[in-house]
């Protein structure tokens, strides 16, 4: 077994970080190993990956100690081109990995650097697309591809370069279940057919334990565990301690969780939101919703699920009037939604986007939370009272003191801040679009517990999600959409017993 990656007492600190991001890492990786890397957010996993293909330190400012030797090259002195053509790195976001206008061009630019003949480049492109199951996609533009397809193109462009080491940094975090499935299937294929050394960073614990013969757990810049998945299973509680999802809790998925005391609505018989026979077609003539009717009662906790493109996001945008149906009507508290002004709707329905960066507009936490209240012309003393309530409810006060700007907050905290700034308007209904993308298990649990508490207090929660843990443990009812139609509205308990419905909804339990 030849060692191809060696970390020797390696430490790294970014230009802007206060503390060491990687702390005295000592590690040897041998050829052919398939290593799984897990750890909480901010542990240093991505930094670790970037150290292997030379991004750190050849292209990043910071402070360094120790050495990393990859394929016989010292990463401090090697040429970036030499390293990165032999070490492939696939990132999390399928969107930003696509820089050219077509799939063919995208795969070709890496190959051009290798100075191959045109005919060889053509062959490799075909081979790579075949490998990832996208044969015939050469002329497609990025806009025509789904997230899963774009991510497969990213893998294709790396594989076409025939790297010796393949690193995947959370390749499925931003994808829907179908996308995740496609990518893991591809990884299985790669593992069987090629003699690559693979490093996989992922939150999908079960998959990591399945695929990898060696597991690294990283926490706060150090390796806290290095061994086989069997050895890991003997270390009771380590996964839980680090806030990593433990597949031993699989039973939590097959049975619904314990719901806390449910809120009894005073409007028990009257729905708060009535959707009647709505159909919606986008200006580009895609019909996204076909004759959908739903009633949502106060105190509900509903998960809306379905394949990508089934109309989930279109549907929730009808709930708060962002989109208006061509046919049918939407009633909020008995009145047509079109009768409400934008500011009035904002006070009744709060909307949280998938990416918190889309909804944070101010520099400080205080300004952000007060933003909505200022828009609604709330009196100053009322603003102060509500602000203090919310910041304590969502445990954000300590971040306010630690960070002068929202720019520095981690994704999980930014998401909590986004929720706070919506919640401060005291809406009756909260709509949350995919809150779990790219989050680790601990953050998901914390966020969902907050939502559950709000539900007990009387808020109606509507959440669009793919996450099986969330669906099984928090939602009381499920709305399943497929191709723009409502398939069923069913209780979670019933759904978890019905495999046909699960298949339609692309629901894949852990």
């Amino acid at each position, binding site marked *: 077994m030849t060692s191809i990656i060696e970390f020797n007492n390696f*430490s790294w*600190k*970014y*230009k*802007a970080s206060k503390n060491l991001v990687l702390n005295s890492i000592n590690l040897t990786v041998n050829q052919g190993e398939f290593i799984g890397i897990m750890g909480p957010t901010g542990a240093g996993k991505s930094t670790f990956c970037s150290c292997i293909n030379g991004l750190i*330190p*050849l*292209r*990043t*400012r*910071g*402070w*360094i*100690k120790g050495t990393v030797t990859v394929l016989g090259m010292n990463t401090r002195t090697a040429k970036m081109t030499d390293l990165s053509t032999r070490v492939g790195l696939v990132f999390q976001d399928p969107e930003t990995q696509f820089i050219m206008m077509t799939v063919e061009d995208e795969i070709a630019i890496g190959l051009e650097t290798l100075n191959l003949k045109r005919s060889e480049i053509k062959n490799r492109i075909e081979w790579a697309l075949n490998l990832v199951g996208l044969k015939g996609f050469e002329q497609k533009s990025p806009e025509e591809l789904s997230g899963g397809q774009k991510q497969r193109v990213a893998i294709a462009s790396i594989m076409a370069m025939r790297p010796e080491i393949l690193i995947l940094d959370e390749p499925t975090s931003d994808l829907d279940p179908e996308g995740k499935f496609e990518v893991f299937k591809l990884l299985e294929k790669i593992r069987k057919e090629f003699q690559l050394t693979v490093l996989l960073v992922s939150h999908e614990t079960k998959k990591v334990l399945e695929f990898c013969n060696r597991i690294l757990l990283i926490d706060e810049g150090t390796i806290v565990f290095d061994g086989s998945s069997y050895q890991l299973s003997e270390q009771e509680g380590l996964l839980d301690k680090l806030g990593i999802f433990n597949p031993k809790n699989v039973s939590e998925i097959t049975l619904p969780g314990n719901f806390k005391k449910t809120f009894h609505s005073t409007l028990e018989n009257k729905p708060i939101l009535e959707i009647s026979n709505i159909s919606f077609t986008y200006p580009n003539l895609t019909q996204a919703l076909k004759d959908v009717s739903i009633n949502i009662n106060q105190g509900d906790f509903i998960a809306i699920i379905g394949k990508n493109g089934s109309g989930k996001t279109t549907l929730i945008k009808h709930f708060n009037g962002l989109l208006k149906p061509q046919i049918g009507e939407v009633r909020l508290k008995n009145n047509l939604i079109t009768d409400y002004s934008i500011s009035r709707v904002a006070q009744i329905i709060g909307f949280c986007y998938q990416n918190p960066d889309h909804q944070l507009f101010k*520099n400080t936490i205080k300004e952000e939370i007060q933003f909505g209240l200022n828009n609604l012309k709330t009196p100053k003393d009322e603003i102060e009272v509500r602000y203090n309530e919310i910041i304590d409810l969502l445990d954000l006060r300590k971040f306010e003191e630690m960070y002068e*700007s929202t*720019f*520095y907050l981690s994704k999980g905290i930014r998401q909590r801040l986004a929720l706070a700034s919506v919640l401060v308007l005291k809406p009756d209904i909260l709509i949350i679009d995919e809150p779990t993308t790219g989050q680790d298990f601990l953050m998901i649990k914390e966020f969902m517990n907050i939502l559950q508490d709000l539900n007990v207090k009387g808020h109606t929660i509507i959440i669009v999600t793919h996450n099986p843990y969330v669906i099984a443990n928090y939602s009381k009812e499920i709305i399943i959409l497929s191709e723009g139609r409502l398939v069923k509205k069913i209780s979670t308990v019933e759904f978890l017993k019905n495999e046909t419905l699960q298949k339609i909804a692309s629901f894949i339990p852990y």
Partner: protein
Amino acid sequence: MSEMEEVKVGVTWRHIVVTALATGVAAILAIYAVIAAPVAPFPGVSGLYLAAAIYVPLSLWLGMWGCLAGYFSCVILGFVSGFGAWSFYWSLADLFEGLVPLLAFRIMKADVDIGANLERKNELYIILAILVIDLIIAAIATAIPGLEILWLVTLIIAVILIIGMYIINPSKSWLLYVIFGIFGAAIVSALFGISGLVFIGIAPPESFWIGVIGWFAGDLIVLSAIATPLMVALTGKIKQTSVFVENWFS
């Protein structure tokens, strides 16, 4: 920490990518700004020209790359407005808009973070608002013959206001920003931009001064009302990123 070695990198793909993406952002904002408030008879000139507010911060954060982003986004705007090949010439006005403050800060070796240790923000903004109005009146007085006394008076007031700002907030950065980042950028781009339109033959020569005053006033307002809060709020954070440019290109 003392045993650790510092790693510095020069120009990387980061700079190319940020220029390209900044061009994209600025172009999208410019196109929407022109749609929201167009000003006839100058196609491509928006009454608010909100995107201009991004060129000065971009050049101070990203050096020459920021200036280039401003230039290229203006070229794109020009193309979309139907200017054709002349966009390449006319967009130089926006290149200069970013270049003037950049040159000032680099030559005077000043820190671009105007928000650091900013004292008495509210008073400063009020003085700035008065200064802007004063400068617009000065511009009108420059254009109309026979108003020399008014011109002199406004100029004296401007100097007093600037000294006043320095007394309240003794910061070289703030001073340079107001003089070159607001006033300098506005006047240079207005003069170049309108003379460009006249030279190409799209605007009648007789409209020169009206055009300059309009462009100058618009830029002053936009730079003081939008660019300034952006600079104050974001510069400190952007300085921490790997892409922040300390010299010209890296």
